[in-house]
């Protein structure tokens, strides 16, 4: 119900422009154009004066046009052809923007691997294998029936150097189908790896995070339909081009392309649901993401409680030499935004190690929320009157017994209500782990949005799941709190 209202509201308030005269990049002056942040279209348009460039994630581009936030968006023309744009009231205005070729990216030091890849490319191009393979893909994509059957799977031999490949979901070059990674570029790279004898791991990154990840050693190869530009070439060693591509400018029907009857609201809702969850078993991706979110949340809470207890113990030390540096550490941890801590841990502190994003996230959350928890614990402990300790001691209870039997139960009553809020904040905050190549619930919805270019269903679904998670956690802690609250009884 609420979802339907949101949908209706978001459909209203469009302004109409006459876009019929726009037929090339130069004509875009004076219009607003949505592009993927950091993409080559972004770089190109930034150099043209008078174009209002709106930089968004891949998943938001079509929605921006659909909702009237921008006049055009530029997406890959191959992809544009595959999507059922007419059903969403959109159409392709013109093609072949920045027609060019995509390359794989390597670290500058890694020229050996790069030349190995180049050698492979040259080999299949001269033998004609390349053309045959590309035709297969093109015809498969045109029919849109099932492109994934083409994916070339190869046996991974253990013991070899595993290549870590950073990708961004870009249909149809790299995408998930029935929860399996597939696409033209993935297929090509798999073939190369098989020939060269490398095991291969694909990791999903944001497009803008690929180059930092490459340079920090997190990944060995960028395979993300990346074009060679002067700017990028300063940091990345590009291979020879292996595929042609270009952008399509998409705008709303009626703004310049021939009008087609739009589907009704109910049909559109149903289509959206099918597209985002049912088709290609995308719900599986969401379910996996949810499991990752739950794992990270639980581990992070445990880590944060442990870190919090430790920091609290040190902070409350009577020795000044211990308590004041701890206070400083707590202040530092609380002074840095969580996302920045996460990125620092991933790209700087653990840059050279191959530790997974999940563990980096658990450590970052543990530290950051440990600092917050420790202060909650400290306030709770300090709120228990000194006299309670003394009464325990005077009766002959030892230090730990007094803590365990007298002080802790009383402190917990004061800690839990405050902690509840922090724990729920932590769970919601796990939604940023997508930045360090972890596919959690939020990232899963991003991936689906990048594929379907539809914002509505994935976001609503993700919100609902987070609400349920928070609510369950709150309920659990509330029950615990109720059990700890002392009750008088009849005797």
């Amino acid at each position: 119900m609420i979802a339907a209202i949101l949908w209706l509201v978001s459909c209203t308030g469009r302004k109409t422009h006459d876009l019929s005269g726009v037929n090339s990049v130069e004509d875009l002056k004076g219009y607003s154009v949505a592009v993927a942040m950091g993409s080559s279209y972004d770089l190109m348009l930034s150099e043209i004066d008078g174009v209002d460039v709106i930089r968004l994630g891949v998943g938001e581009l079509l929605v921006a046009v659909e909702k009237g936030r921008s006049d055009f968006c530029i997406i890959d023309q191959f992809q544009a052809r595959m999507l059922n744009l007419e059903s969403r009231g959109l159409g392709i205005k013109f093609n072949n923007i920045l027609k060019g070729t995509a390359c794989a990216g390597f670290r500058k030091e890694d020229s050996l691997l790069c030349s190995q890849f180049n050698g492979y490319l040259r080999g299949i191009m001269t033998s004609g294998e390349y053309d045959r393979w590309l035709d297969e893909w093109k015809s498969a994509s045109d029919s849109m029936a099932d492109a994934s059957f083409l994916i070339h799977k190869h046996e991974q031999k253990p013991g070899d150097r595993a290549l870590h490949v950073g990708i961004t979901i870009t249909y149809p070059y790299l995408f998930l189908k029935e929860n399996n990674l597939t696409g033209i570029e993935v297929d090509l790279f798999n073939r190369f790896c098989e020939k060269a004898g490398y095991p291969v791991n694909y990791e999903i990154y944001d497009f803008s995070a690929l180059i930092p990840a490459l340079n920090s050693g997190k990944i060995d190869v960028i395979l993300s339909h990346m074009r060679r530009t002067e700017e990028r070439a300063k940091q990345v060693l590009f291979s020879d081009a292996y595929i042609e591509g270009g952008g399509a400018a998409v705008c709303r029907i009626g703004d310049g392309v021939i009008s087609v009857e739009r589907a009704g609201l109910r049909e559109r809702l149903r289509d959206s649901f099918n597209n985002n969850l049912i088709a290609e078993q995308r719900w599986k991706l969401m379910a996996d993401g949810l499991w990752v979110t739950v794992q990270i949340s639980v581990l992070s809470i445990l880590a944060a409680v442990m870190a919090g207890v430790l920091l609290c113990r040190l902070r409350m030390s009577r020795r000044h030499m211990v308590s004041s540096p701890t206070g400083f550490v707590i202040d530092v941890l609380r002074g840095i935004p969580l996302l920045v801590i996460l990125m620092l841990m991933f790209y700087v502190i653990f840059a050279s190690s191959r530790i997974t994003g999940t563990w980096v996230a658990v450590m970052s959350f543990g530290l950051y929320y440990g600092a917050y928890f420790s202060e909650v614990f400290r306030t709770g402990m300090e709120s228990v009157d000194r006299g309670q300790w003394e009464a325990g001691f005077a009766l002959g209870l030892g230090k730990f017994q007094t803590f365990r039997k007298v002080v802790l139960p009383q402190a917990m009553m004061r800690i839990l209500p405050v902690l509840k809020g922090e724990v729920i904040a932590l769970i919601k905050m796990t939604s940023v782990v997508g930045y360090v190549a972890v596919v959690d619930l939020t990232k899963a919805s991003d991936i689906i949005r990048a594929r379907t270019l539809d914002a509505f269903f994935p976001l609503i679904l993700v919100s609902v799941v987070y609400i349920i998670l928070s609510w369950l956690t709150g309920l659990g802690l509330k029950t615990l709190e109720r059990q700890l609250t002392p009750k008088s009884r009849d005797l």
Partner: protein
Amino acid sequence: MIKVKHLKKVFRTPGGGELTVLRDINCDIEKGEVISIIGPSGTGKSTLLRCLNRLEEPTSGVIEVDGKDILDSRTDINQIRRKMGMVFQNFNLFEHLTILDNLTLCPMTLLGRKREEAEKRGMDLLEMVGLHDKAGCLPGELSGGQKQRAAIARCLAMEPEIILFDEPTSALDPTMVSEVLAVIRHLANQGMTMCIVSHEMQFVRDVSTRILFLNEGVVYEEGTPEQIFENPQKPVTRAFINRIRTFESILENRHFDLYGLFGKIHMFCNKYGLGTKVSDKVEHITEEMLCGIMPFCGPVTMTIEYSEKTSGLSMTFRQENTLDSILDNTDEDSLQLMMIRGMSNSVTEPEKGTVCVQLGATSLNCTQY
């Protein structure tokens, strides 16, 4: 049973200074005794009590309990504390436990009692302190007096050999003091060894077998209640027992600030509930003595002492640098002396150069209670 030798306790102040609270305490507590510790505030009565079970760490000295030095690091202090109950000013009941659970926690944890056994004993003790029907309540639901009685019962549940009472009634409403004192009195009658810090003088006098008067970090005077209350030997004890308040002013020469002095006297009288009439009378006598009778052949020290217990007030004027009697050199018929005699009970000169004017309770025309 407990021997304290040369006990010293120095507190560090936040500013880095040192505050000596106990200088050199020596005392013994024998089985069956009820020892009360009294003295002016800030003399370390509570500190002494808290040193006995090492809630405060003494700076130096020896405390022996049944021949064991409790300050020795090899002594298990928790073992000692089980035999020494303590009742606090602020009760310190465990807020998260019912009254009965407060009583059973330690016997079950430390003495290995079974729950039923501990609860039965707990209920008996609550019966004894009159809280049988409050067993299932939380401490928050009890009045101050009930809390303190429950705290005493909690102490007894550990079957201590001695109980230390740290100002057990100071935090209570006046209406609730007597119910707590009645319980303590009951314990005293049963022969429980106790050590009590209290400001309830009448109670202390009734219940104690021996009284320690603490002043400036030492046991200043020690004796039976009769000795301390009826016939204190030392001046500070006497001042404390009679609750004497003093005012002192040194006047360098004849040209002192009379009206400034009047102001101070007025404030002193006000502070201790003496009315305007009394302060007028005191000011009048001051004026006659200082402006007529005292020769001022050097500085004059004026002291006013007021006993809250007897409501008697005395004024002393001491002339420095004189060998002559002042009253002898004053004309008996002089107007000033006649007026002073008229306003006071007696004017005497106990030693040469010192004139003492006594105003009895009757001449202090004001309400006392």
